[in-house]
Every structure is written in structure tokens, then in C-alpha cells.
């Protein structure tokens, strides 16, 4: 694994914004976190279309709505905690209800924020954002997918919530060949015994888990579900039909995120065991991200354990 390149998805966000710099319609906003969210990259390249609102996230979201109503494609950025949490109601009412063209670039999602601790570790944003009608929710697995998701979001009409991470994580995809499409999942491994549906940094853990499961004679299908809304229902139903057991994996609360979204579809169409890997209704705490992730069960070993359990429960 010596040749594994690691890069944070927030860096992919910066790359994506930079790729959009020639589009005169694109405006980028931040709330005093430009260095951390990587919007600073855009600011440097195009200061005239970058606006720092200072520490006022709700105001930023509503200003973004006003800009979008006047024809701009706006990327509004902060940490997930403040973009989806603090500014939830502005996102819902100023952006979501009028279905305006604002892309919320939320970095520092999940527990891998690390040392800053629970106040900054947002494990609820996917749940919050996917309840807003018309909101697209994307959680890229690596920096390549993050960049492509930003470009795709800019081409999509209406509000999009993009969730990025702070931690440098393995780059899985090859930018030269990888095709990203909003709403389409990607099957990364083939297997007929169980499907692991993962999102964000848990995709890489799912791939490791699939390797571990091979030793037990379990062939796992791994699906990268970058778009959580609209969910790729066909892929979920096919997984239920063809593998008969599903494990979801996300760096988010087990309540309301990918696991819930998948369970909704499976329960309503073709009930099979669905086990969820995620943060178990708890706040985070301070510590290095690499230690926190396994502490909260956000690791390949836990995915593999849940997969074995799911297989054993198959009818």
C-alpha cells in the first residue's frame, strides 16, 4: 500500500472550484473559514467573485439565495456543522423552498474532524439536508470524486449539498477515467453474498472489508453511494434482490443518513437484512481522527463483522 495517495475531499472541493473559475456566473462565499474549507483557492484565483461574509452563516445562506435569484451559481461554504446545522433554516427557507441555484460546500463533515471535538463533528448533516424537498445531497468518497461532484453540481439546476471531509483519505478513483454522475452509484467490487453500500470515507473501508470477507468465503459487492439524495434506488433494489443482505457504512449518525435512506427503500420494496455502520446516536469527542474512527466503529473490521452478521441472517 506504499503507493496510496492520500488527499482530503475538501482539497477536491478546492480543485473543483478552481476548475470553475472561468465561469463568470460562479460566485463563491465563505464564513471566515476560507483556508480550511479550501475556498481560499478560488479566492486567490478570482478575488472579485469571492465574498467572505464573516462569521454569520445564516446570513451567508440568505445572501447566496439573493445572488442566485439574480442568476448566479453560488457556492456557499462553511463547516458542515454550521452550514447544515446552524444555517438549516436559512437553507430550507431561503434556498430550498424557492429551489435556488445554491451549492452548499460543507467541509469538515463527520467525526474525522478529530481534535476539535464534538461541537465541530457534524454527524447529522445528511439527515438534515435530505429532508429538504428538492435538495440534492452528495458525499464524495475521495478527492477525485469531490472535484467531479463540484463540477457536476455547478451544471445542475437547484440546490445541492456537498459534504467534504477534513482528513486526508486514500484516492480511490482515477481522474482520467472516472465518470461521476449525480444520482448514479458505482459498483466497485462484484459479489453475490452481501452488498456493502458506503459513502464518503467509508467507501475505502468498505473495500478493505470486502478483502477481509474473502478469507471467510464471503463475496461482497461494494457500492459507492456518493449521491444520497436522490438515492440510486435501482442499485439498492438490485442489491437486495441479488445478494439478499445489505450493510450500509457512513461517517454519520445511523439515524437519518445513508443507512436510513437505504432501509427506507429496502423495507418498502424487498425486505432483506439491512445493518447500518455509522455513529450510534452519540456525540463525538476530541482525538486524532485515525483513532476516533475505529473507536466509533467506523472501520473495515466493523463493516466486515456486520456483513458476516447480515449474511447469517439471510433467510
Amino acid at each position, binding site marked *: 500500500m506504499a503507493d496510496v495517495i492520500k488527499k482530503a475531499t475538501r482539497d477536491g472541493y478546492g480543485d473543483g472550484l478552481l476548475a470553475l473559475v472561468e465561469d463568470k456566473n460562479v460566485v463563491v462565499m465563505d464564513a471566515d473559514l476560507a483556508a480550511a474549507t479550501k475556498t481560499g483557492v478560488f479566492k486567490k484565483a478570482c478575488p472579485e467573485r469571492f465574498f467572505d461574509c464573516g462569521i454569520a452563516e*445564516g446570513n451567508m445562506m*440568505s445572501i447566496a*439565495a*439573493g445572488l442566485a435569484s*439574480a*442568476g448566479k451559481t453560488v457556492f456557499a461554504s462553511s463547516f458542515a456543522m454550521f452550514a447544515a446545522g446552524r444555517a438549516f433554516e*436559512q437553507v430550507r427557507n*431561503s434556498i430550498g*423552498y*424557492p429551489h435556488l441555484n445554491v451549492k452548499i460546500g460543507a467541509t469538515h463533515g463527520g467525526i474525522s474532524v478529530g481534535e476539535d471535538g464534538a461541537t465541530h463533528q457534524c454527524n447529522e448533516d445528511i439527515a438534515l439536508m435530505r429532508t429538504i424537498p428538492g435538495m440534492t445531497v452528495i458525499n464524495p468518497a475521495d478527492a477525485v470524486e469531490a472535484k467531479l461532484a463540484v463540477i457536476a453540481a455547478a451544471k445542475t439546476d437547484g440546490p445541492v449539498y456537498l459534504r467534504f471531509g477534513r482528513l486526508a483519505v486514500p484516492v480511490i478513483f482515477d481522474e482520467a477515467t472516472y465518470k461521476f454522475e449525480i444520482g448514479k452509484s458505482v459498483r466497485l467490487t462484484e459479489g453475490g453474498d452481501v452488498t456493502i453500500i458506503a459513502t464518503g470515507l467509508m467507501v475505502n473501508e468498505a473495500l478493505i472489508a470486502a478483502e477481509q470477507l474473502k478469507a471467510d468465503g464471503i463475496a461482497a459487492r461494494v457500492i459507492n453511494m456518493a449521491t444520497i439524495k436522490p438515492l440510486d434506488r435501482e442499485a439498492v433494489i438490485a442489491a437486495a434482490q441479488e445478494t439478499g443482505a445489505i450493510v450500509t457504512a457512513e461517517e454519520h449518525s445511523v439515524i437519518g443518513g445513508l443507512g436510513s435512506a437505504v432501509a427506507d427503500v429496502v423495507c418498502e420494496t424487498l425486505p432483506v437484512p439491512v445493518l447500518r455502520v455509522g455513529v450510534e446516536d452519540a456525540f463525538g469527542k476530541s482525538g486524532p481522527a485515525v483513532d476516533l474512527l475505529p473507536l466509533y466503529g467506523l472501520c473495515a473490521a466493523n463493516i466486515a463483522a456486520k456483513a458476516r452478521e447480515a449474511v447469517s441472517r439471510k433467510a
Partner: protein
Amino acid sequence: MEATRLQKLSAAATRIRMAVVEGTFRAKSGHPGGSLSIADMLAYLYTEELRIDPKNPNWADRDRFVMSKGHCAPALYGALALRGFFPEEEIKSLRHIGAMLQGHPCMTTTPGVDMSTGSLGQGVSTAVGMALAAKLDGKDYRAYAILGDGEIQEGQVWEAAMFAAHKKLSNLCVIVDNNDLQIDGTMDEVNSPYPIPEKFVAFGFNVVEIDGHDFDEIEAALSAARACTDKPTAIVMKTVKGKGVSFMENQVGWHGKGPNAEEYETAMQELRAALAAIEEG
């Protein structure tokens, strides 16, 4: 102001008030008090001030208007109907199932509504975004927002004000409807935002204080706002909640309920008489 213009504006304001009473009666709900207090300002904005085209409501270079105190939608609808954005008949189905006119302004269903509002404090920020877009594109359109005096208790209003002044958005004009009453009582009883003009001055605004029922003062204030080239303007206008319907004036109880049939008749009689008097000159 010459008598014919004054007459035209007074008549327009009275028609807006009639729409407020009609709409809230038909809806059996809504917010007549704060809608009536801004009728004169809306009459001026929609007949004299705003550069808009009812035939092309989404005209890219139009002036923008945001009803930041979105619950006063009935007055906005009255003004839009008066200006020809949609037939006056629509007022009668305000807040009904399937109606175009929602309880709070909805930009995706109603021509002439530039922003969906209702959650207090947010509209003014969206107007800031519109003013910023104009500056960014080198366009000369302006953005206007009407805020309630209770609304300015929302911290977001001051976040928006800070940003607007910092960016020198001279094409932004916020209008505070200071009728001094909010749901739970007078401003002083609830949580005083006073002094209002001084606060906007401190935030870097050009501030004009007026009587919100005096068309000469309204005209002068809007003109002063346009003349100011280095700051956003705040017009703080003293108004009477429920203005124009005698039994609603200064009664906090009329903040958020529709008149019953008897009250409706009384109110409409008063307004029809007022309109007749205006038209007779």
C-alpha cells in the same frame, strides 16, 4: 407634491388596504395590521419608485423588492395586482388550497414576487444578495426590502446590515415599518430594539426617518436613498398598525387574524368612503 399625484397615490394605497381586508376576510386568517401600516409605502413603491414591468416580471434588470416581513403578503399582493402582475380576483383565494397566493410570498408561484419570504430576518439578507449581484454585474438596478420593527430583533438583520455597509451596497434600501406593535405587545414590553435609527447609523447606513403615511416624506426618503452613493440606506418610518381601518388602528389583536363578516363590511365601508373622498378630490 402636486394634488393629482397625491390623489393617485392615496387612491392606490386605499385600494391596497381594500385588498388586505378582502384577502384576510376570504382567508379567515392572515395579518391585516402590519399590512395596513405599509400600504402607503407600497403604493409609492409600486406606482412611482420601482423599475419593473408587469408584462416581464423576470426582467433581469428590474429593481428587486423583498417583503422581508413576509406575513404582510396581503399588502404586497394588493400592490402587485394594482400594478397588473395578476388579476385582482386572485386576492379572493388568498391562502386557499390550490391558490396562487400563498400565506407568505412565494416566488415560484406568484409573478412579481422576487423572493420567497416568511421566516423573519432572512428576506433582508436576500435583498443584500440581489444588490451585490447588481454591483457584480455592473448593473444599475436597486434592491428594496421592507422589515418589521419586531423583525429587527432577529440577529440576522444585523448580520445583513453589517455586510451591506461593509460592501458599500448603495443600491440597497431597507425600510423599517415602525408601528411599535408585535404579537406579544408593544416593542418596549417585549424586547425593545430602540433607538432604531442610531443602530443603523452605527452599522454604517445612511438613515432617513419619516412618517410612513406621508407621501411627500416617502418620496423624499426614497430620493435620498437613490442619491446616496457610498452607503446602503435605511428608511425608518413611523406608522400606525392597522392604518386606515378605524377599529384595527393601534390594536395588537389585529396582528394576525382575519375580520369576520361584520368587521369586513365595516372596514370595506370605511375604505370605500375614503376612496370616494379621495377621488372627489
